[in-house]
């Protein structure tokens, strides 16, 4: 049974993208912002649908896809990130009015791909969703036509992305050669047959590379800083949150549930990659002078922390990744929103644009400090609870205690560069002392994300319950 009905949200979102693209051709440039609103509304409406599905517990399996609590959690995260991204885009200067329709449609389609990805139970289906995300995101990254950095980032992203797709496809073909299927439903019943088949294990590792690229896992992270720096800032936020978390969700499904990494003896590989990801990300971030690059490396490091939960892979490990995904969503989105506001006023993404910001806009500075502290994992903010959860899973596993210790050392390193921004805002002086104003859309995003950062940190119980309810992948 194909059970296409389970894909209704994705289908509606894709159609909305098409309609908006079409509408873009008929709406005058002066009223182009309307298209952002349409995009936001459709994403929000689909978000509502997903939540309704979750409330009604409308779970089920399709031929190649599945709708389970985990998929729904990640769809929720993706759509929320999409709404935030489109709201941030409304007053972003570098998007030309005549391209608003294309831009909005591409964002919706990329989100659509991510939603497919989060429920993928077939490797071909998974590949197509990855491609839908990649192609949309390549174009979005290069959207600032007048900015050579944007083109550079897009090209790098494209080349590395193409390579990683090729590797993934090769991995899938090896998998198919070894098992005779690409479908993970069929596969589950014959899991023991292939336990020690080298072609199959190679295939899985190549597929891991494809994911590694998407979540910017070291050593497949080289595209990230350039693409993040070049892309329009709302897209940077989108790449670092939605794209990363969607891929992480699918990775959790495959490597922590369907074909657990410990069953193919590759736990140590992932553990070492997790260790490398957080360490390299943090150490490189120390030397950045551009805030977008800094946040890019910081988000590489954040991916490394989240991989701890994947390595542990027991229920607590999975819960911790899911919780951290929520935490990372609100925190990183907020940090990029503030970065965008500051750059909108000063015209620069360099760190010295933050000098004396506390004198200019105390509220904005305090909120930014909150986001940074949350990323660093300082209580009582949500990032702390997330890290607490991740470290708890590692401590509980005993075997991976060393990852928790490394995570601790990394957190200390990360505080140095996060607080460097705080230092500039509060301790340094700037020549320009005019206030930094925030437009209503961005202010809305900042308000919601900062409130969530604080409240989810103080009262995490509700979200922990949600996350606990979501750990079960398809039965």
């Amino acid at each position, binding site marked *: 049974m194909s059970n296409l009905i389970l894909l209704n949200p994705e289908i509606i979102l894709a159609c909305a993208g098409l309609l908006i693209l079409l509408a873009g051709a008929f709406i005058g440039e002066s009223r182009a912002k309307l298209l952002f609103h349409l995009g936001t509304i459709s994403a929000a409406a689909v978000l509502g649908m997903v939540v309704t599905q979750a409330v009604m517990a409308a779970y089920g399996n399709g031929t190649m896809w599945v709708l389970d609590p985990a998929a729904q959690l990640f769809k929720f995260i993706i759509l929320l990130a999409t709404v935030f991204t489109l709201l941030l885009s409304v007053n972003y200067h570098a998007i030309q009015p005549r391209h608003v329709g294309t831009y909005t449609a591409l964002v919706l389609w990329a989100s659509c791909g991510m939603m497919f990805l989060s429920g993928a139970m077939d490797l071909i289906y998974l590949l197509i969703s990855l491609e839908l995300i990649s192609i949309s995101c390549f174009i979005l990254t290069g959207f600032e036509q007048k900015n050579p950095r944007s083109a550079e980032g897009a090209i790098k992203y494209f080349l590395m992305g193409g390579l990683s797709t090729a590797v993934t496809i090769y991995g899938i073909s090896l998998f198919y050669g070894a098992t005779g299927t690409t479908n993970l439903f069929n596969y589950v019943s014959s899991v023991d047959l292939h336990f020690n088949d080298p072609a199959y294990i190679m295939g899985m590792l190549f597929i891991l590379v494809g994911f590694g690229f998407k979540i910017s896992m070291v050593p497949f992270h080289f595209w990230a800083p350039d693409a993040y720096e070049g892309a329009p800032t709302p897209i940077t936020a989108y790449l670092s949150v939605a794209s990363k978390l969607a891929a992480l969700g699918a990775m959790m499904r495959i490597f922590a549930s369907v074909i657990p990494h410990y069953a193919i003896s590759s736990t140590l590989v992932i553990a070492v990659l997790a260790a490398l990801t957080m360490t390299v990300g943090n150490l490189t971030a120390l030397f950045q002078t551009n805030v977008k690059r800094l946040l890019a490396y910081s988000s590489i490091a954040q991916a490394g922390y989240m991989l701890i939960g994947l390595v542990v892979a027991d229920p607590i490990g999975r819960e911790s990744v899911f919780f951290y995904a929520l935490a990372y969503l609100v925190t990183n989105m907020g940090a990029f929103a503030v970065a965008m506001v500051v750059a909108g006023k000063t015209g620069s993404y360099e760190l010295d644009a933050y000098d004396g910001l506390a004198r200019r806009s105390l509220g904005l500075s305090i909120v930014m400090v909150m986001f940074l502290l949350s990323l660093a994992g300082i209580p009582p903010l949500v990032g702390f609870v997330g890290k607490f959860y991740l470290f708890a899973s590692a401590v*509980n596993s005993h075997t991976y205690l060393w990852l928790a210790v490394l995570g601790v050392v990394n957190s*200390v390193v990360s505080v140095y560069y996060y607080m460097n921004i705080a*230092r500039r805002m509060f301790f340094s002086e700037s020549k320009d002392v005019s206030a930094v104003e925030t437009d209503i859309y961005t202010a809305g995003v900042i308000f919601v994300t900062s409130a969530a950062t604080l409240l989810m940190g103080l009262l995490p119980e509700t979200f922990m319950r949600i996350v606990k309810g979501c750990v079960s992948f398809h039965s």
Partner: protein
Amino acid sequence: MSLLSLIVVTPLIGALLILAIPGTRTKLIQGVALVFSALTLLLTGYLYAAFDKTVVLMQFVEKLSWIPAFNINYCVGVDGLSVALVTLTGLLTMLAIIYSFNITVRIKEFFFWFLLLEVGMLGVFVALDFFLFYVFWELTLVPMYFLIGVWGGPKKEYAAIKFFLFTLFGSLLMLLGILALYFNSMPHTFDMMELIKQGSLLPRAMQIWIFLALYVGFAIKIPAFPFHTWLPLAHVEAPTGVSVILAGVMLKMGTYGIMRFSFPALPEATKWFMPFLIVIAIINIVYGAFCAMAQKDLKKMVAYSSVNHMGYCMLGMTAMSGIGWNGAVLQMITHGLITGSLFFLVGVIYDRAHTRDIDAFGGLAAKFPVYAGLMIIQVMASLGLPGLAGFVGEFLCFLGAFNVWPYYVAVGTIGILVTAAFFLRMIEKVFLGPFNEKWAALKDIGFREMVAIVPLVLLTVIIGVWPKFCLDLIDPTITYLVGMIK
């Protein structure tokens, strides 16, 4: 809402209120800060009065469910170990706020961070749930970072981040230790009292690992050798009021944590660690004293004397007996009073002369009799003159430790000698001898400064003459705690 929650929440309300006042209304901001810190002090005073000295268990306990998913509760309570520290925190914060009325830049932010800091410190001393303890512990970090970094001296930024990184490293290791305890308890819990009951059942090797993880967190705060390097820097760069809090309260969080939790919960590890702790204590005492002797900067000298005095405190802890532990707790309190007031006094002279160089002064006693009098009383208390508070604590620490570690204690007495030497040399250079005419225009200590300092001096004398009123409070709990380990 119980009394303890009220104590913790009062400064928080003050902080939020300050955030709502426009930055230009400086008098109002100062007023609000003063009122809320005074209110907190009154409540802690009431706590002190209402505290039943004969009960050894936790009093004023309040327990609310917070994060049931991890069995985390909002749980607060005090016993003889913490009640005096809570009162000390209330007192020192209010006095430091009064002293800090001389801050002229970014007043709103200053008092906001200051009251937030008080929330964290009070929370640490009343928390009975380890998760809550950790949250409060970390809550002290960020305000302190900004207080040093914005209003500090020339090297403030370096001092602030060094403080932050050191402390965070320790506290995150502590977090791992806490998590290990959590997962090894059955049913999983963060409740300190429950963990203390279950901790002793853990295998010895695990106890040792957990003890070390917690110890690093606490030792950095104390600061115990070799983790002390952040302290002189942070103290010297911090503004006066903040130095007072740093020395007077925050250092005690480390020793408090060890006595509250590490010792009773992990007895096997404690026994294993004692030979190391005594060595560290002696290094702190002797090395701290010699470092202080080498300083030309008054404030740095007092800062190193803190390293030395916290060494006495650890020395008392190594005794593992009622006498030594009473001494350690008393030493925490008297060090808060004495060193706190010494930082105030150093601040007074620095505000006037804009230098803290010991050699730059001379003969100040004749010109500034009140100032010199207060300073000499507190210095004498700090070097352990009988009749003043410092003596009682130090004496009990040495007395307790002598039973167990006679040779180490003998070495430790060098520290007392050196302490006396550098303090007396400082008095000689600054207050005696020919008057340096360069300072003829300076004024003697003012009213605001007197208000901040005199209560501490009075308490120093009172505790020195009649230590019983403090020891009565501590002793029953300490006897109970010592009994748990033996």
